[in-house]
C-alpha cells in the first residue's frame, strides 16, 4: 500500500497534475525556451534537479522553519541549488547556458518549484517529497520537450539541430506560435484527463442562476418527471 502511494506521488506529476499543462505553472520559461528541443531538455533537466534537491531539503527542514518566514526560507534554499546548477551548466554545457540565458537563474522564481515546496514538501516526509519533485520535474520536462519538438520542427524545420524539413513556418518559433502550441497542448491534456477521470455530473439545474438557493430543486424534479413521462 505504501509502495503504491509512493508510486502515485511520482506519476501524478506526469499527466494528471502536469505542472505546465494542467496546473499552468511555470508558463514563462515554457514559452520562452521551447524554441528548440535541445533547449527544452536543458531547461527541463536543470529545473528537475533543482526541484528534487529543494524538495528534499525543505522536507527535512519543515519542522525547523518557522511558519511565518517559510517563503523567504524556501527561496533561499531554492536559490542555493539554482546557483549550484547554474555553475554546473556553465562548466559542462556552455552552449545550453548561452541559449537559456536569463531563464537559467530565473529558475529561482519558477512557480513550479516554490509551489511544490509550499504545497507538498513543507507538509510531507522526505521520500514522498523527492518522488513528488521527480514526478513534477519529469512532467515539466516532458511538456517542454513536446512543445520544443513541435515548435522546432514547424518553425525551423529541424529536430535537435538536424535539418529535416524544407519548409519553415517562422511564426512557430516566435511568441504567437508558442502560445498557440501551448494552448493546443493544454487542450490535449484536458481531453486526456477528462477521458481518464470520471465524467462531470450535469444536472438540469446547472445553467440556472437560482440553483444554489433553490431548496426544492424543482427543476431537477421536473426534469426527472419529464424523463419518466418520456419513458
Amino acid at each position, binding site marked *: 500500500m505504501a509502495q503504491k502511494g509512493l508510486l502515485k506521488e511520482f506519476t501524478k506529476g506526469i499527466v494528471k497534475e502536469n505542472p505546465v499543462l494542467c496546473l499552468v505553472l511555470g508558463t514563462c520559461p515554457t514559452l520562452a525556451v521551447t524554441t528548440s528541443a535541445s533547449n527544452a531538455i536543458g531547461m527541463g533537466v536543470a529545473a528537475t534537479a533543482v526541484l528534487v534537491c529543494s524538495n528534499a531539503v525543505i522536507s527535512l527542514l519543515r519542522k525547523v522553519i518557522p511558519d511565518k518566514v517559510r517563503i523567504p526560507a524556501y527561496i533561499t534554499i531554492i536559490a542555493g541549488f539554482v546557483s549550484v546548477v547554474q555553475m554546473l551548466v556553465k562548466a559542462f554545457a556552455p552552449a545550453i547556458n548561452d541559449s537559456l540565458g536569463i531563464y537559467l537563474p530565473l529558475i529561482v522564481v519558477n512557480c513550479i518549484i516554490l509551489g511544490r515546496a509550499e504545497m507538498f514538501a513543507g507538509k510531507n516526509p522526505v521520500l514522498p517529497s523527492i518522488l513528488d519533485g521527480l514526478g513534477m520535474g519529469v512532467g515539466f520536462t516532458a511538456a517542454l520537450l513536446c512543445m520544443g519538438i513541435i515548435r522546432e520542427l514547424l518553425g525551423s524545420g529541424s529536430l535537435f539541430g538536424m535539418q529535416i524539413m524544407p519548409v519553415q*513556418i*517562422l*511564426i*512557430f518559433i*516566435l511568441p*504567437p506560435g508558442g502560445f498557440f502550441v501551448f494552448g493546443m497542448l493544454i487542450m490535449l491534456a484536458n481531453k486526456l484527463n477528462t477521458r481518464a477521470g470520471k465524467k462531470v455530473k450535469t444536472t438540469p439545474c446547472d445553467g440556472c442562476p437560482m440553483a444554489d438557493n433553490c431548496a426544492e430543486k424543482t427543476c431537477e424534479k421536473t426534469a426527472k418527471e419529464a424523463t419518466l413521462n418520456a419513458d
Partner: protein
Amino acid sequence: MDAKLHVSSSPHFRGSNSTRRIMLDVIIALCPAAIASCVIFGWRSLMLIAICVASCVLLEYVARKIMKRDTTVGDLSAIVTGLLLALNLPVDVNPLIAVFGCVIAIIVVKQMFGGIGMNFVNPALAARIVLLVSFPSAMMHWVPALGAPEDAIIDATTAATPLAAAPGTYSYVDLLIGRCGGSIGEVCAVALIAGGVYLVIRRVISPIIPCVYLATSALMSLVVGLDPLYQLLSGGMLLGAIFMATDYTTSPVTRWGKVIYAVGCGFFTIMLRAFSNMPEGVSFSILLMNILVPLIERITVPRTLGYIKKKKGDSK
C-alpha cells in the same frame, strides 16, 4: 418541429436581410477588384482566388462536421473570407502557403472561437498576418503589374510596391487603375471604391468606418509629412478600410464606437507606415483595433431612453 403556434419574443416584424444576402452583397462588391486583379496579373490570380475560396469552403464544412455543429457553408461567409484572403496575397505565392492561410483563417480564427459571429479578429486579416510573419520573403515578393512604370521594375520578376518605391515612381493614375505592384486585390483603387460605393448604397456597411478611417489617415499623413492622397491610394488602405475594418463581428456597433475605432485604425496605419520597419501597416492596425473593440463598446454604450445622468456628489 412545424408547430402551429409560434412563441417568440419581440420584434415580430423582420426585414428580409439575412446573413446570406449580406455576404452575397460583399461578394458582389469584391467582384470588380477580383476582375481587375485577373486583368492586371493574369490567370494566376484567378487560380489563387479559386484555390482560396475552395479551400475555405471545404475547411469550414469539414470543421463544422468534426465539431458536430450545423453546417454553415450556406451563409457564404467562408467564400467572403477566402476571397478577401486571396486578394491580400501576392500573385506568385505558393498555393500551399495560401491553403495554410485558409487553415488559419477558418479553423483557428473562426471555428475554434465558435464560427461566424464569434471570431475576435477578422479571419482573413489574421491569416494574412500569420502568413506575413511566417513566410516574409514569399509574402513580400511582388511581380510587376501590367503596364507598370519602368522605374518601379527592380529586375525581371520583381517590382517595388508604391509604398517601397522611390517618390515619383508612380503617378496617381497608376495607383487608381492598378498599374503598380502589390497584393492582387489592393492595387486597383477604382475597383475597390466602386465596391465600397455599392456596399454603402445597399446599406450593407455604414460609411462611418471607411470615411473616418481614410480621413484620419490623410490627416496623419499631413502631420508626419507624407503625401495624403498617395498614402490613401497605395497599399492595402482602401481594401482594409472598405472591406476589412467594416467586418460586422469585429467592429463596434455604436456610432461613436465606430468613430473611435476608425480613428485608431487610421492613426496606427500611418504611424506604422512612417515609423516602423515594415512598409505596410493596414493589417496590423486593424487587427489591433479589432482586439480593442469590446473596450471601445463598453465606453460608448448609448444612454438609455429616459435615463438621467447622476450629478457628481448627488446622493441617492
